[in-house]
């Protein structure tokens, strides 16, 4: 049985975990001091050796990304931290930054030193004002403590509420003051990113994982996780569970184990479907309870590890309704740049609304799948791909339920049954 391995979340239960004192009490900022004394290339090598992979969803090896930055080119380099956590279900960076903003700042110092950048920009979603205040305070405290401002500066930039700005190149456009839309690649950010300068864009959790790797070494980090997915990570459990929250465990843990460790499905109910990594990763069902939640394991089972946002839905949930809600989100958030995503999500919502209202036909299901086929892999960025995942996967596992809507002339579920206030009475 895999155990929880709190590293990032080790001290979140302390009252002052978010303060610089609280952070320093447990050895905070010793890793950056150690790193600043190291050769930048040695840090990159160490991070490569640790096996740390991007925690924003794609799982690209972090050290390798850093290594792409051309060295000795006499140009400004930038570190950009993607804190625009906006995916439905994804909720790891927000609590991490609330509980321990300094670990990100320390990670920024180390990463900047490694890639020879003088500036780090943290791009945070604008809706989380409480987190913005907390990170701002942490940055201010780090400056006061002389940890920042000595050759490395950190700027917090607040997004204006667009999901697309979590896409790294749209984020860069937004950061530059333009409307956020993904950029054509190449050039990749490592060559021409922010202000056309070599730029590393990393997720909050990726950067926050670095101080512990510096402090404890690559071997320590490698000791956790699976063959190709090293280390520990935050699994965000939400939905129909008794005890939702962040569970930090080695990569490769299964949902069954996490549910056991956390307190299980909503009492009296059974698991119906779940997302392994947020709404844009294909759905899993109870048959996937033992899939190892690492990059390879989830892929092999037909989904993506994504952001490890485990949204749990029990048997009271109408999958058509859930998928419609997600699709409405993607339609709302499609940036409009490319045709498949812009027009496709517009159409998907209309088809799904009809299906949910019992106005669809079985032919509409075929049309829906064909439409998804015309969007998936045809869009400019991954937003369009993500929009199709819940639809195709839900039809794969719950085709009968879609048909039931058609034959029943509407949704056969009681929508109240899936709510927290179910059974509370009128």
């Amino acid at each position, binding site marked *: 049985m895999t155990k929880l391995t709190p590293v990032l979340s080790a001290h979140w239960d302390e009252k002052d975990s978010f303060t610089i004192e609280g952070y320093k009490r447990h050895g905070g900022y010793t890793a950056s001091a150690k790193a600043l004394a190291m050769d930048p290339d040695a840090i990159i090598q160490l991070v490569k050796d640790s096996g740390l992979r991007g925690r924003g969803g794609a799982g690209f090896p972090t050290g390798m990304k850093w290594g792409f930055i051309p060295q000795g080119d006499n140009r400004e380099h930038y570190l950009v931290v993607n804190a625009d956590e906006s995916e439905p279900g994804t909720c790891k960076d927000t609590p991490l930054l609330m509980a321990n903003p300094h670990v990100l700042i320390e990670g920024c110092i180390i990463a900047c030193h490694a890639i020879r950048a003088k500036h780090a920009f943290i791009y945070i979603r604008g809706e989380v004002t409480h987190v913005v205040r907390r990170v701002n305070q942490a940055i201010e405290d780090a400056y006061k403590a002389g940890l920042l401002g000595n050759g490395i500066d950190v700027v917090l930039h607040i997004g204006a509420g*667009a999901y*697309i700005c979590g896409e790294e190149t749209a984020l860069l456009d937004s950061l530059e003051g333009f*409307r956020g839309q993904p950029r*054509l690649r190449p050039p990749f950010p490592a060559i021409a990113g922010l202000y056309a300068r070599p730029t590393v864009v990393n997720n909050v959790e990726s950067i926050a994982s670095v101080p512990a790797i510096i402090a404890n070494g690559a071997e320590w980090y490698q000791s956790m996780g699976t063959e190709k997915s090293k280390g520990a990570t935050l699994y965000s459990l939400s939905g129909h569970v008794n005890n939702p929250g962040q569970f930090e465990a080695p990569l490769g843990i299964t949902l069954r184990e996490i549910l056991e460790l956390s307190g299980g499905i909503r009492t009296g109910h059974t698991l119906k479907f779940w997302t392994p990594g947020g709404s844009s990763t294909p759905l899993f069902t109870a048959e996937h309870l033992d899939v190892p939640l690492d990059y390879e394991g989830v892929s092999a089972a037909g989904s993506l590890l994504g952001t490890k946002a485990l949204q749990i839905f029990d048997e009271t949930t109408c999958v058509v309704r859930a998928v419609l809600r997600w699709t409405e989100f993607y*339609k*709302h*958030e*499609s*940036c*409009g*740049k*490319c*045709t*498949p995503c*812009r*027009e*496709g*999500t*517009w*159409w998907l919502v*209309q*088809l799904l609304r009809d299906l949910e209202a019992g106005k669809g036909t079985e032919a509409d299901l075929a*049309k829906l799948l*064909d*439409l998804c*086929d*015309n*969007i998936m*892999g*045809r*869009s*400019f960025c991954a937003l369009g791909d993500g929009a199709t995942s819940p639809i195709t996967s839900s039809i794969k596992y719950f085709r009968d339920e879609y048909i039931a809507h058609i034959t029943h002339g509407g949704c056969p579920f009681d929508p109240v049954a899936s709510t927290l206030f179910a059974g509370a009475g009128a």
Partner: protein
Amino acid sequence: MTTEVVDMITVVVDGFEVSVPKGTLVIRAAEQLGIQIPRFCDHPLLEPVGACRQCLVDIEINGRAFPKPQASCTIPVEPGMIVKTQLTSPVAEKAQRGVMELLLINHPLDCPVCDKGGECPLQNQAMSNGQGETRFEGVKRTFQKPINISSQVLLDRERCVLCARCTRFSEQIASDPFITLNERGALQQVGIYENKPFESYFSGNTVQICPVGALTGAAYRFRARPFDLVSTPSACEHCASGCDMRTDVRRGKTLRRLAGDDATVNEEWNCDKGRWAFKYVTSVDRLTTPLVRNSAGELVAASWPEALAAAAKGLKAAKAAVLVGGRATYEDAYGYSKFARIALGTNDIDFRSRLSSNEEREFLAARVVGSTTTYVDIDRADHVLLVGFEPEEESPIVFLRINKQVRKRALKVTAIATKLSIGVEKLKGEFVKVAPGAEAGAIASQSLSAKSVILVGERAAESAGVLSAVAALADSSNAKIAWIPRRAGERGALEAGAIGNLLPGGRPVTDASARVDIGALWGVDSLPSAEGKSAEEIYAAVNAGEIGALLVGGVDPLDGDNSQGALAALDKAFVVSLEIASSAVTQRADVVLPVAAITEKSGSFLNWEGRPRAFDTAVQDSLNRSDLRILSMIAEEMGATVNLATVTSAVKEIASLGKWDGARVSMSKVSASAQPAVSGDQFILTSWRRLLDLGTLQQGEENLAGTARATVAVISPKRAGALGVVDGDKLKISTSLGSVTLNALVEDIHDDALWAPRNSRGSQLLVNLGVAHGAVVSVVKV
């Protein structure tokens, strides 16, 4: 000639090999084989964006296939690349059909009433690469329609496929980023800024490259269906850039003009004036019949024989001179040139109906006639020096060409000017600020190389010594000179010898062998040998009683230095006027002969490069004759043989001229005049014409006029402070002749100078003040 070595890459498209230069995009490599991949956002002159996803194809490189179809408009060819388009890949075919279906779900089916219907890339490609029936049964996106994004351009947002061609053009080509995409998802739309109107001189190109009917021109909207139009290749008559154009005519009336496709000149662009100023041809003032002044002093309609006889009689009766405007075609100018020498026996001819000088005339004969500087020299230049020339206002395609190099490789641009213009700012040019009249002094200190190009405008003639300094700089640096007049016909008129010191082909009139050359061609024994008078001298000679008759073609007497003197001369002399419409000249003429407008005849212009820009007759059934034909008829009536009955005959005769390899006119050095000292309420006036102004050929074009730049008087911050003037204050600017009152604008301009537009609404300087550049004016805040 330098040859550029280009790496070629061989790729396979649909089983066929093709070799293309390195960097070529897949979509264009396919074009080389005649394989048309459907596309919307792709445009060969805009940077790739990959937004519409219509051009998806399957690609593998050295056996490694991309896992999903790729946008062929964004991927350059690579060695070992195998491309499968819709023709050979079922996956690509389905992807394209899917994207097409998606593009159409929110696109209205209003093709029957859409201006683009019949020539619409969306319509055409929906037929070629789409499916007949849509599967979409839902609710389409709708918008209020149309909204005008300028007085010229209307936007129907529901038709827009969001390809961003218009916004990319405005940003990347025109450097006028006044339109942008707003909102997101399917509600994304083209928008303008709240406080910055879409005032771009190039906005019409967005209408032309719009692949659907989303952007339409206000002047053409709902006027015609493309299949009712007869299109004729034409050349633009508005300036010396030399744009290739297309004129679309329905039932004898021009309904629209489009930019033609000429990679060497205008690429695929033109300016809004060239596109949208053509109603003058059908204006109510058009002359339709000859007029002869009767004994009571009234102009009355007359028959052609009557009018020709009257013209011949009057021109024979007195010493006569010829004034031909800068808008004559090359062939017509040649006709005037020949007519002056043969029928009138004089070299008193001048095409420069504008501010000019004898220094300029020498410069044109010594440096410009026959010169071969071209757009390619701008493309390759290490430094472009602008002297008396505002490219954006005075030759917009030259501006675009410089801008292209500025954007591409940060071409260095220096402007010697009195005021920093919007255009030079966009070119990121170095602004060498001089007082009006002091331009010459700033030229010598420029360091240029043999790869540099000096672009000299016609306004260089307005300050003494400037052209001498330009010639000296070119000699010392080996830089190339290009003279870029505003009007389309001036270079042709120069080559045709419609000027007092030159015969056709740059032959000096004072050179005996040159006269023998031309005399032999024309079949005459002798040609006048003395240098002729300039336009200004001709008017003066009329007023002094030395010249008694004038043949005037397409001249506005108010364009010159001494407009009062010009009008007096026209009143005094016997005037034969060849004109398209009623004017200050026809009103004073004794014989008025209507001539064909540009669309009613064939011919050519020589653009600033000297490149022939030939055009065909667009309106076939006009009864109007070209100037050339009428001149031949007058000559016949006078007993002389001009013998140029058709444009073709002139073209042939010009072609048989041969090259002149004799001596050129040499240029005597002219020094700059002393600068007047100004103080207090005195300023030295400086001005230029804006692209969109009160020009005769823009009359009646209200939509076009709506995007003209505001009429302002510009003074420097220092002088504004001294006078207590802030932006928007009214300034009354006066000379002894009159005054204009304009809104003040405080900008980067020489402290001695006041700039105002030369011929804009409320500011017609030559008419209102009698001066335009270098003269002292007094200014008061009112």
